[in-house]
Structure formats: structure tokens, C-alpha cells
């Protein structure tokens, strides 16, 4: 199995974009060579990923399932809120370095190009509403005069905006976008905002790192419908064999409870697979 995979990698690992001045990346930036993967795969991670440690564990589990050594590579980070140049760097990383990129959002609005394919999701996690006030049990309990924070550009934020746009103005909460979740937490704790809508793994990280955040509670987001993000990995579209193998490995580790165990290990609330 291992030898067969290696041979296939040799044949298909090269997924170069067209080398002309028709993209925003100078062609000199691309490696015009195939990677010799041997019995390992290069697995990249966004260093700012909210579920980085979880994704690293999942990558190791996928590697084990495929009898491949996982070479973990810290990917990129530090992008603007508008995503400028992000896809340039995804293209560069996937062409030059990464066989697989972990922790990718599996959604209809995925910004990645057709050159790359997203695997099936290995986990699904909800967006949650966290508050400090013990009297509130649901979003509807929060006075409309108070403000909410949302994780900038997240599916949870989109969900809230879509709901809010359907309500009369006096029935909405004023919402402020945050890219820094630590700052958003501080603002919940100091009362500047009543609560925050963010991805549960992000909240888990805050709860694990900030003792002062222990007072935060997750309450029902009603009347705003709940939302969630599915998490998968990115592979080259040309490497359909690798994608199929990884999909099969994900299926296997979802079925055998590996993912569920990792979700519990990291203190996440969500589910394995879709």
C-alpha cells in the first residue's frame, strides 16, 4: 500500500498553475518540479487556525490510517479581513509544499479555486452565543439596547446578519465585528457588549487559556437559528487518488470513534463527520 501510494504521488503530485503573467503571482515563485513524497505526506496548517491542535491530531490519525508518515508544516497566516492575497498564498503553498491543507471550512462559499478540492468533512462544530450575565438563558432575554459581538466574516456572523436584516430595526441587536476573539471576550466581561457569537472551538480555546473567562456561559441563540461549520481538508484537484484515499481514511476514523475521541479530548462540542 505504502509503495503504491508513493508511486502515485510521484506521478500526480505536480499541480502547477499556468506559468504566464495571467495570475497575481509571479511565475518565479512556483516550484516547477514534482515533490518526491516517498512514504510521507506534507500536511499544512494555518498557524492562526482556531482548531489547530485538533486538526494536527486528525492529520496524524489520517496518516496512520493510510500508513503514511505525516510531515506537519506550519502554513501561513496574518491575512487581511478581506482575504486579499490569501488565495495567492494558498495556491503557492499547495503547489510548492503541501499535499494536504487541514482545517478548511467545507461550505458552499469556499473561496478556493477549482485547482483544489475539499475532502469530506471530518468534524462539524457549532457557532455558539456566550454571555457572562447569569440571568440570560437565550438571546431573546438580552435587551435590544445591548450590543453583540460576532466573529468577523464567520458563518455565525453571516447567520446573524441574515436574521437581523429580516427584522424591524428596533427588533435587532446592534452587532460589532471582532477579528480578535480575546478582545471580544474582554468586552463581554467588561460589559461593553452583552454577548458574543463565535465558533465553539474558538470559545474552547479561550476557556482553556483565560481563567477570567470561566464565568462565560453558552446560551440558546434563539430567536436566531443555529449555525455550524464543517471542517475538512484541501487537496489538489489533479490528485484524485489522494483525495479518494483521504476521504476513505476520514470515513474510517469517523466510524471507529477516533474523531469523537479527539473532539472530547479538546473540549469541543460538535460531532464527527457531517
Amino acid at each position: 500500500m505504502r509503495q503504491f501510494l508513493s508511486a502515485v504521488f510521484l506521478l500526480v503530485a505536480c499541480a502547477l498553475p499556468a506559468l504566464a503573467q495571467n495570475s497575481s503571482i509571479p511565475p518565479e515563485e512556483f516550484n516547477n518540479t514534482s515533490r518526491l513524497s516517498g512514504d510521507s505526506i506534507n500536511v499544512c496548517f494555518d498557524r492562526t487556525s482556531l482548531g489547530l491542535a485538533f486538526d494536527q491530531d486528525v492529520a496524524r490519525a489520517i496518516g496512520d490510517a493510510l500508513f503514511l508518515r505525516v510531515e506537519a508544516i506550519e502554513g501561513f497566516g496574518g491575512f487581511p479581513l478581506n482575504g486579499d492575497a490569501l488565495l495567492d498564498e494558498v495556491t503557492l503553498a499547495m503547489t510548492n509544499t503541501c499535499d494536504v491543507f487541514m482545517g478548511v471550512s467545507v461550505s458552499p462559499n469556499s473561496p478556493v479555486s477549482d485547482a483544489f478540492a475539499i475532502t469530506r468533512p471530518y468534524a462539524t462544530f457549532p457557532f455558539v452565543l456566550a454571555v457572562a450575565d447569569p440571568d440570560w438563558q437565550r438571546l431573546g432575554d438580552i435587551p435590544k439596547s445591548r450590543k453583540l459581538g460576532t466573529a468577523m466574516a464567520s458563518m455565525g456572523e453571516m447567520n446573524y446578519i441574515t436574521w437581523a436584516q429580516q427584522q424591524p430595526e428596533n427588533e435587532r441587536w446592534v452587532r460589532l465585528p471582532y477579528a480578535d476573539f480575546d478582545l471580544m471576550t474582554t468586552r463581554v466581561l467588561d460589559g461593553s457588549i452583552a454577548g458574543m457569537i463565535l465558533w465553539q472551538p474558538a470559545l474552547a480555546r479561550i476557556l482553556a487559556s483565560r481563567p477570567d473567562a470561566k464565568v462565560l456561559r453558552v446560551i440558546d441563540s434563539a430567536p436566531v437559528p443555529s449555525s455550524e461549520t464543517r471542517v475538512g481538508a484541501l487537496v489538489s484537484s489533479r490528485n484524485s487518488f489522494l483525495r479518494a484515499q483521504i476521504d476513505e481514511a476520514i470515513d474510517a476514523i469517523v466510524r471507529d470513534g477516533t474523531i469523537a475521541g479527539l473532539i472530547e479530548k479538546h473540549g469541543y462540542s460538535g460531532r464527527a463527520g457531517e
Partner: protein
Amino acid sequence: MKTLIKSLLMATAAFAVISAPALAQNTREYSPVTDEMLANPPAEDWLSFRGAYNNQGYSKLDLINKDTVDDLELAWAWPMAEAGIQETAPLIHDGILFLQTNNNIVEALDAKTGDRIWTYIHELPELPASWSYQLNQARRQKASIALYQDKVVLTTVDAKIVVLNALDGKVVWEKQVLDYNKGYSYTVGPIVVDNKIISAISGCSIAGTAGGCYILAHDFETGEELWRFNTINDPDNPEQQASWGEVPPENRWGGTPWTIGSYDPETRTTFWGIGMPGPYSELIRGSGDGSVLYTNSTIALDIDTGKLKWYYQHLPRDNWDLDSPFERILVDQEVDGEVKKMLVTVAGKNGIAFGLDRETGKYLWHKETVHQNVVTGIDPDGTVHINEDLVAKAVGEEHLVCASVSGGKLWQAGSYSPLTQAYYVPLTEACNTVAPTQTEFTAGNAVGAMKFGPRVLPEGVTEAGLVQAIAVTPTSGKTKWDYRSRPTPTSSVLATAGGLVFGGDAARDVKAWDQETGEVVWSQRLNAPIGGYPATYAVDGEQYLVVPTGYSNSASSISSAFPEIPLPTGSGNSIFVFKLPSK
């Protein structure tokens, strides 16, 4: 691979810095560049990004003119030290040509022979291996240097000011201005006035830079910070605060001043253009129908205090990433014995030209150039009305917006000729769809809140390129001539006392137009799209024309509009220097 390149660069840097003095053994004389020279440069020099403090992009040299331009021949050429997107502005003084390229490499070349005098390679920190946005910014460094006294002042991608000796490239001092770990990064250079280095930071759309985007002044001798002006948080102006609705400063982004400002020594005022707000869509940023000051504005600052004198907003309530940071040109015209002091600009990507009274900021006139549909009208008092039909009311709501996110107008600067009293502007006809769309890449993370479609030509338009000459008066801007072409202009333009305008396009052609008529009187095909900022200078009584070429985003982003013109595979970042035959 990147790590390897970085290691090689570091090794080379050490070598280059050490070897510089040996290479600089010469008897060159270098006269200090003074404020007076920067305001009124000697004809033979090109001392700053657009030639002079007024940003006119005009040279008083006239040996190369309508009668002689056809005789131009190649004097020398030089490959740039680094790949990447090519937006350089060569500067020339006392026979030395200073060339900055991506990754903050600066080279000094003999302007007559093209021989290298010294090379400075800025040592970037190791961290960018995982800070891809900074690496990306390093590949698109614009006009990053200024000349002052006997020094070269460089701004860097890791948010430093570095002062070099002009004659040997040795570092005199360097200062970490802002924290690049937060995302701050210089992409344009400074101006230096009255011993103050005035610079503008970029990276103001990154999570860590929330609430602060700055124009700063530092002491030229010591690097001490003298003042800073925050383009998105002005506590002295309640109107500015109210314009963001209920959004407090810590939740504001954008306002990047990413084109070098101009300066009026008479009033000790510096003028800068400011970019778009972040996030792009008001639906996401939460600012309601507020105008989100000072985004998309011209701001006039007192150079001694950094205090705002006035502002004028060219595009309030931007929802489409149509920044307005481009060149602010200072123009004086005498009318009935009275000197009218104007600021003229095609401020933003939508290509609308404005004339302002630069002493008061009062609106004088405007003129549309390329197809645009975001501004529906401008009142006599200068109030700009936007097309509210193009403001998305729901996530995913898509609109076709003209001009496109890459212009219309972009960084390529226009020039003003006192000979013809006309402003020559390189432009592109383009539109794209825009929709506020949450687009996570890594799950749960903030990386995108807007989806742009590809750049397309406006309906009924077949020529992407436009160079427009705008006749400027204190009361109007009117079309003097239009030059339309299939390929898009990809360089800034240069006007000269020889009656010519020089510039170039995606088809690799550098051209000279007759300032009066728009007729192309000279054209030369080079190795790559024409880029950067063409300049001219003189050595030993001979006039030279320097033309940068190389990798061009402006070409690649609309290449589908001229498929018959193949773009090169390589970057080819170079400068080509032309002159007339020696007599």
C-alpha cells in the same frame, strides 16, 4: 523553499553590506538634497517619487522632444535584483540612479553607464515564513525610497524606516516604527520635509491592526517620532467619530494611505489620499449608512503638529473596495493676476477627477473619465452621492460595479504639465461583480467578507486602455484628448518640457504621446509590461529616459480583455535607459 530563499537572501545580504564600501571606492561628489531642491528640483535630477513635492510628475528637460524622440536609442539596461510585482520609482541625483525593488533591495547605479555602485539588501525577519501576507506585501513594494541631504530613506515591509548613506549604502540608523507582528507593513515610501520623515503605514485591514492606521512624522536625524495621525480615529473631530455609526475605534479597519503624499512648503501642509474602509461592506462592518471618515478622502495635515487642516471625502460610504488613495497633485494657475492654488487628483478607483482649493479643501469641480456607476452625482458644494442601489442589503446580494476593484484608476500615477495645463491619467475600463459573502478558508476564521467577480469590460466597450488628458482650470476639468487601446496602461506617466508624455502598457510598449494632441510619436516594445514610474534625467548635458518593466498585476487582472496580446512567462523586472545619440 521560502526558507531556503530567505537563508540565501540573508547570506547575500551580509555579503552585500560588507562588500559595499569596496565597490563604492570612487571620487563621486554628492551634493546634499535640500528642501529647496525637492520643491524646485534641478532639471537634471529626479529627486522624488513624482519628481518634486508637488507630485506633478513633470520634468523641465526638453532635449528629448517631438522632433528628436524618434532618435532615442538604448543606453543601458539593468535587471532588478528581485522578482515580484513591479512598481518601482527610480530616483536620480548627481549622476546616481537609486533603484528600489521588492523585498526592500536598494541599488545605486551610475546613471550614465548603468554600472552598480552599491546594493543594500534589507534583512527581513525570519517570521515571515509563516506570515504569508507580509511575504505577499514584500513582493509588491512600491516607490519605497526618498532622497534627503546625503541619505536615502527607505521604508520596509517589516514596518521599519532605514536611513542609508547615499554614497555607499551603509545603514546610518533604522527604526522599528510599528509592530509587523500585528500586520503593519510599509508598501510606499516617505517624503522628507524640514527634517521630518513623513510616512504612511499599510496593513490596516489585518485583524491585529484594528483601530489604527497612521501617517507619521519622524525626526530625520534621530528617528524620534514627532507625531502620528490616525486616519480612522480622530478624537478631535466628533463628525469623524459619528461617521462610523456605533462602531468604536477598536472595531474599525482600513483607511490605508498607500500612495506617497505631496507637500506645499508655503503653507507647510502635506496632502495624502486615504484608502477604503474595512470590512468593505457596511453590512459586515456595522457602520450603517455612515460615511466612515476619513476613508476615501484627501486629508491636509500641518507638518509641524500633524493636526488636520481640512479633509474632503471623494467617496463616502464605500461598499465596493474602491479606494481613493492615489496621487494628489499640487497645481498653481494664475487667473486675472491671482494665483489659484489647487489640488488635482483622480483620487480613486472609480476614476473621477477632482479639483480642490488646497488652502481650504473646498470642492471646485469634478470630471468623470472611465465608466463608473457608484457615484450618481456631486452637488455644487462637493457633496458626493452614491448609488444606493449598489449597496448590498443581504449577504450574498451581488451587483455589477464599475469601475472594478483594480480600477478604473490604480497606483499608476498621472502627471501634470504646466506647458499645456493638462493632467494626463492612465486608466482602465473595467467592471466586476461584488457581493458581501462570508468566505471562511480555515474553519471559523476571518479571512474574507467580500466576493469579487473577474474584471470585465463595460458593456459596449472593446478597448480596456485609456490615457486621458484633462485640461485643468480653477473652475473645470475637461477632456483635452483620449487615447484608447486594447491593452491597458500598466505604468505611471511622465510629462516633460519636451512636449511629451511617456508611459506604457500591458503589450510591452513604451510610448510617447504629443501632449497637445495625444498622437503617439514614439513607441518601443520591451521585454515585459511597462511598469513603475518612468523618469528622466540628464548627465553631462545628455537627457536620459528610464523605463521600468516587469511583472504587472494590472496586466494580468484584465488580460482576458486583450487575448490577442500574450503576456510573457517570466517577470523580467528590469529598467531600460534610453538617450539620444551622442553628437
